[in-house]
Structures are given as structure tokens and as C-alpha cells.
């Protein structure tokens, strides 16, 4: 869980290209001579590292940004490569909205991401959606930076990945 959050924040930093701290993305213990660094191909970790597992939205918006489309395209490419993988896209919101409105907004975000993946050829039967509204923040702060991270669609592999 901690790892996932760190990865998500790292990915966000990269997407925003704000040169803040891309070193947080993943720890790479590449000192020995044994296996090559990085996650096993087809694993959850591979998916997260290869395509990123969150796309981000503007305030009260479910429109996909250019960065979000890029990220989803990478997700789609990875999912094409591993056709037995099934995913759930979870829609999340920042805290600046009421609980119920945000549940509806999160559903829109999850479906916007799903629709884009389907448009890129991913079978809709491989994708479920869920909304957590503002219940699943990845950054607990109350700041513009935290809010921008908390407004996301989070792609979670539910089955079919290489372990």
C-alpha cells in the first residue's frame, strides 16, 4: 500500500513534469550481478512502472488531459500485451466537494478512463469501475498539490497478472 502511494505520487510528479522529485518513483536496488532490476514482466509492479496506474483530473472535471490520454494509451498497450489481465478503474476526488457529489464525480472519472481504454481496443468486459468519491486520498494534505494528486482514476489489476 505504501509502495503504491509512493509510486502514484512519483508518477504524478513525472506527469506534471515540474522537476520536483522524480527520484521517488521506485527503489532500484541495482548493485548485485544477479537478476536485472525492475519488476517481472506482466506483473502488477511492471504495469505500474511501465504505464503508471493513475491519471489525473482538473477540479470538478472528468475531462481527460493530454497527459491522461498518454498514460491511458500506455495502460492500453500493456493490457493488449497481457490479455488475461482484468482491471478495475477507481474514480477519486479531492476533499473540496460533498461526499455524495464526489461519489458521482468519481464515477464519471472512472468511466471516462474506462471509455478511453475501450476506445483503444480494450474489451469492456475486462474493465469494471468503482467510485470512492473523496474516501481514498493518496495525499492527506489540504493543499493544491495534494488535491491535484487526489483527483484521479486509479487502475487496479484485479486478476490475470503475473505474480
Amino acid at each position: 500500500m505504501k509502495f503504491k502511494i509512493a509510486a502514484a505520487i512519483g508518477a504524478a510528479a513525472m506527469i506534471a513534469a515540474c522537476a520536483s522529485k522524480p527520484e521517488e518513483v521506485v527503489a532500484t536496488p541495482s548493485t548485485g550481478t544477479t537478476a536485472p532490476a525492475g519488476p517481472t514482466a506482466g506483473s502488477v509492479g511492471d504495469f505500474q512502472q511501465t504505464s503508471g496506474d493513475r491519471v489525473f483530473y482538473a477540479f470538478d472535471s472528468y475531462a481527460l488531459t493530454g497527459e491522461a490520454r498518454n498514460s491511458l494509451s500506455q495502460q492500453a498497450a500493456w493490457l493488449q500485451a497481457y490479455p488475461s489481465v482484468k482491471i478495475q478503474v477507481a474514480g477519486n476526488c479531492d476533499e473540496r466537494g460533498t461526499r455524495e457529489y464526489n461519489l458521482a464525480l468519481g464515477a464519471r472519472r472512472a468511466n471516462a478512463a474506462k471509455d478511453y481504454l475501450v476506445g483503444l481496443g480494450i474489451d469492456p468486459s475486462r474493465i469494471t469501475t468503482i467510485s470512492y468519491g473523496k474516501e481514498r486520498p493518496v495525499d492527506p494534505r489540504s493543499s493544491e498539490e495534494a488535491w491535484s494528486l487526489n483527483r484521479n482514476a486509479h487502475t487496479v489489476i484485479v486478476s490475470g497478472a503475473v505474480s
Partner: protein
Amino acid sequence: MLAAVRTFAAVLTAACLAAGAWAQDGPRRIDITQGNLQPMPIAVPNFLGDDSREEKIGADIATVISNNLARSALFAPKDPASFIERIRDADVQPRFADWRLINAEVLLVGKADVTAENRLQVSFRLWDVFGQQQLVGLRFETTPENWRRIAHQVSDRIYERLTGEQGYFDTRIVFIAESGDKLQRVKRLAIMDQDGANPVFLTNGEHLVLTPRFSPTSQQITFLSYASGRPQVYLFNIETGRQEILGDFPGMTFAPRFSPDGAQVLMTLEQNGNSDVWVMDLRTRQRRQLTSAPAIDTSPSMAPDGRQIVFNSDRGGSPQIYVMNADGSNVRRITFGEGRYSTPVWSPRGDLIAFTKQLRGQFYIGVIRPDGTGERIIADGYQIEGPTWSPNGRVIMYQSETRGVGGRAEVRSVDLTGFNERRVPTPGDASDPAWSPLLD
């Protein structure tokens, strides 16, 4: 007169006490429509008892009553240390001069009696000190462990006698008990008395639960749970603990709320990202779609007469409040002020709709008339939301969360006048309060 009082926990019976020669006219009446008025000074000596157990119950009852009245801000209980007369017989007229001297406008005397059959009998008389007459006198009977309910019922009788309005002390609050840090919050369905006593957890925190609402007519709660793996509206029977998913809908259901007659549940159904308002009949389980805009339509709340529904929609570009007929026709927007409006909740009196508003980074609780006039803000803060009405429509509770990493969630209450804002005691952090109807 013998009035049978139906409750979920135990049967309470109430009987009028003879007023003797004293008339039942009142002292000055408290006008609760005014904010910041001078609270009425009241003396609440411990209720009498014949032994230490009865005296303990009597003292506890007096404390609960005194606290209820003080929290309403309509009454100012006098410090017992200032009392001159020591009440020795609850059925004898008090020495009014002694109570006038300490400026108590009204005096409550009572006694607690535990019978040989282990029944608790509590009687009280409310005296108009300056008018020198009994205002109300009643006797209640219940089981001894139910003494708090009697204290609340006595409080309600006092409130009713002196304000002319229905009381709200014999009520409960269902809410979400929160624990853990912001990134791994554990949320449990919980219930407590209106004053924070007797908190009970109804779910174990394994699944995310949100937005519980009380049935206005039965011991049932409707709420949102992720227990099945996806968010769905549930019914929870408080007496049996039984839970059931309400309807097999092909998408997320959320934002449930009972109709005022308790026969229907309004909710939102989300399909393919679009949210619409639906209504389900609890007896026939038939459901009907009420809105069909390609927009967010959520947070429905029905008027007490059942003829109109207020809801939240962003069909105009930002979240605003709309009213429609109960069949979904005649939709009109009622909020046009600056800001984003949501979570409308119709007052049990019918004359106002409470809402959450966001404007320039701040949150507000406000009220507005159903025709869109008379908007008034009654509370503000960072992240306050989700108003719920006391059954008499005079007090609003809402949830408040503080900023940042260590953000704490609590329940607060404020009078409709915008005065008397205070924290509601809860066991730990709490959110999503919903007021029950009067229990009797």
C-alpha cells in the same frame, strides 16, 4: 390520562399529575425563532429518592435534563449551590419566594421510585415561580436502566411547555464513527443518543460505510456500504441488526434518504458514469427513475408533504440545487447565488431547505426557502457539510473536518437562528450525522 409511549427499547408509560388548584397557564413563552435571546433561568434540583439507589437515579436524571436544557441555549440552569429551599417532597408546592430570590423563572421538581417489581417510576412537576402555578406534571414508568430516556422525555415536556414547539431530546443520532489516519480511515456505522450517550457501533469497520439516514417511521437506517465490493444502498434494522441490499441495481447506488412517510427510499443510481435520482417503494420494491439528465443528479430529499423533491445537479454547469415534483416533472433551479451548492435537505417543517455551499475555498451550511428566496448562512468552516434537521426543524447538525494531514472529523450543531454552535460529543472522530425522529 394514560398515554402509552411506544419505544424500541422498553415501554414507557406517562401519566399526568394532578395540578391541584393551580391553573395551567404559562409564564413568559420562549420565542425560539429569535437568536441570542435571554435564556430562561430554570432550577433543576436533584430528583428525590427514598434510598441511595433512587437518589443516584434522581441526581443522574436531573443532570441529564439540566444538560439538555443548557445545550438548547433557551434555558440557563441555575447553579444548585445557589438554591435556598431544599425540596423534601416533590408533591408539595415549593416555597416560591425562595426560588424568586435566586431568579429562577421556572422550577423542576421530581422524584424517582424503584418499585418492588424493579420498575422505575419517575414523576415531575414544572413550576412557574413567579406565577406560582404548576405548568405540567407527569409520571413515567419504565425499567431502571431506561432512566436516561425518561430524562429526555421530561426535557421534551419542559421544552414543549415553554416554547410551544415539539421537543427533540428523546432522539438518537446515527453517524459514521471514524478512526485511523486520513489515508487509511476506518469508518463504522454507529448510533448514539442525541446528547452523545450510549454510543453503539453497528458495523465493525471492515467495509467502508457512508451517509446513514434514519427512517422517519421505523427503527431502520438506510446507508451506503461497500460490503459487496461495490457501493450499494443498504437497509439496516436497528432492532434485529439485519442488513440487506436495497434493490438489485445495475450500477452504483448511493445518497439514500427515506421519504417522510417512510414508505420509499430516494437514492441515486449511477450507470456508465451518469447519476440519476430514483425512488424505490419499500413494500413492493418497485423502482422508478425520476431524472434523466446527462449530468450529476444526486442527494435527493423529499418535502414533508411528499409532493416535491429537492436534489443536487450540475446540469447547469456547476452543482446547484433544484426542486421537482415527486414524479420528476417541473424541474426548476432554486439556487442562483455565488458558489457551489449541494446536499439539500428538506426541513421537517417544510418551510426551508438546508444545504452545503462552497465558495472561495470555504464551506458553509445554509438554509433557503423552497422557492429560492431567503438564502441565509448559519455556519461556516473548512469542509463542513451534510446538514441534518432535528425533528422539530429548529436545530441542524452537520459534520466538520479540519484541514490537513491530521484532519479531525467531528459533528457540530447549530440553531436555525445561526446561534448556539457547538460540538456534539462523539466517541472519537465522527461524520455524516443523521437525526432520528422523536422516539415516542
